[in-house]
């Protein structure tokens, strides 16, 4: 399909777009926290694929290559938007911990997901990406290293620190469900 796209086949591009739209949208949204940036990011990624399809060297799978482009676009979009405002001030750190402690008494998974959204915003974009790629996309640490263009040990370290921070922010994670 990449060959067809490289040859200017718009129908092939449409197929690829349709396949990757939602995974990319979610991924970029999870990194940037903004749907408008995510929509912009998806089209930026597809523009790169359209223009540079021939440069795909086959060293990884197509999906890893595309998610890698998405990762870099997401970080760039986030950096650009943060030059002007801090989108991730979010709920105060203490407030999340307090609410999570209270939640531990109730063990409501839906509330936990809401708190998780807030807690993830306190992680760096790189750490959020590793959590998302591991737990939502089911990527191996080697695949994540290829996407983020970093050593596998860096992936493991990022995940380790992300887990530690989430554990502090969400004590409810450690409580047993009733």
């Amino acid at each position, binding site marked *: 399909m990449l060959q067809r796209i490289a040859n200017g086949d*718009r129908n092939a*591009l*449409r197929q690829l*777009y*349709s396949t990757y*739209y*939602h995974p990319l*949208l*979610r991924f970029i*949204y*999870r990194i940037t926290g903004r*749907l*408008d*940036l995510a*929509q*912009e990011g*998806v*089209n930026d990624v*597809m*523009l790169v694929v*359209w223009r540079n399809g021939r440069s795909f060297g086959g060293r990884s799978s197509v999906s890893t290559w595309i998610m890698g482009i998405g990762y870099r676009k997401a970080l760039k*979009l986030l950096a*650009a*938007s943060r*030059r*002007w*405002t801090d*989108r991730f001030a979010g709920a105060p750190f203490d407030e999340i911990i307090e609410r999570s402690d209270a939640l531990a008494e109730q063990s409501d*998974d839906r509330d*936990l*997901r809401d708190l*998780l*959204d807030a807690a993830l915003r306190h992680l760096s974009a790189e750490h959020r990406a590793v*959590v*998302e790629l*591991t*737990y*939502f996309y*089911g*990527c*191996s*640490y080697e*695949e994540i290293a290829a996407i983020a263009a970093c050593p596998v040990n860096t992936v*493991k*370290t990022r*995940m*380790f620190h992300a*887990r530690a921070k*989430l*554990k502090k922010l*969400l004590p409810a*994670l*450690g409580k*047993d*469900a009733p």
Partner: protein
Amino acid sequence: MTDFEPLPHTRAFELLPWLINGTLAGAEREAVEQHVRACIVCRRELKEQQRLHASVRARRTADVSAEAGFDRLDGELDSDATVARPRWRIRYATAAPFAVATAAGVAVLAVLLWLTPLPELDRDDYRTLATPPADVALVDIVFKDETTAAEMQDLLDAIDGEVVAGPSRLGRYSVRVASDPKNEHHVDKLIGVLTADPRVRFAGPSLADVQQ
């Protein structure tokens, strides 16, 4: 008998997420599983991470149509995307106070604007790309200090305008608007409306048009 080395606790502990998502394989997986069976700390961590895994997987993203997104991309490819898209809409969307700060100058601003060329408009390549066809005109707009980015966008939407350059150092935007070729006063009227708008400090024919 096993064909793998026992893992140190720290290595097994850091690999738990990939045991949970099922991507560990072979000897590495067996080594982690063996460690977890014997380590109460890792068993507790495994349970917590399984809960985190389930919560992350359960998070939903807004259901947005791929079709509309592709149509935008398709349009961009048609126009070859050589004219810069007005990304300020995105980047400045939540930065009204900063955008306002760029709209410097008070009483003498309008005069200064006419004397200060827009760098974007002076480039030959810009002229080539942005020279408007008969049914399109360029106008310059300076918004008032207190005008927020959202209000700017509302006004642009109302006149169906698109920013093609700016802001200049003095806060001037060059905006492409539809023009009625059968009505030579159409743009003048639009400029009159803009000038009267409480969100606008200044509106006038674009320097790009004036200088041609």
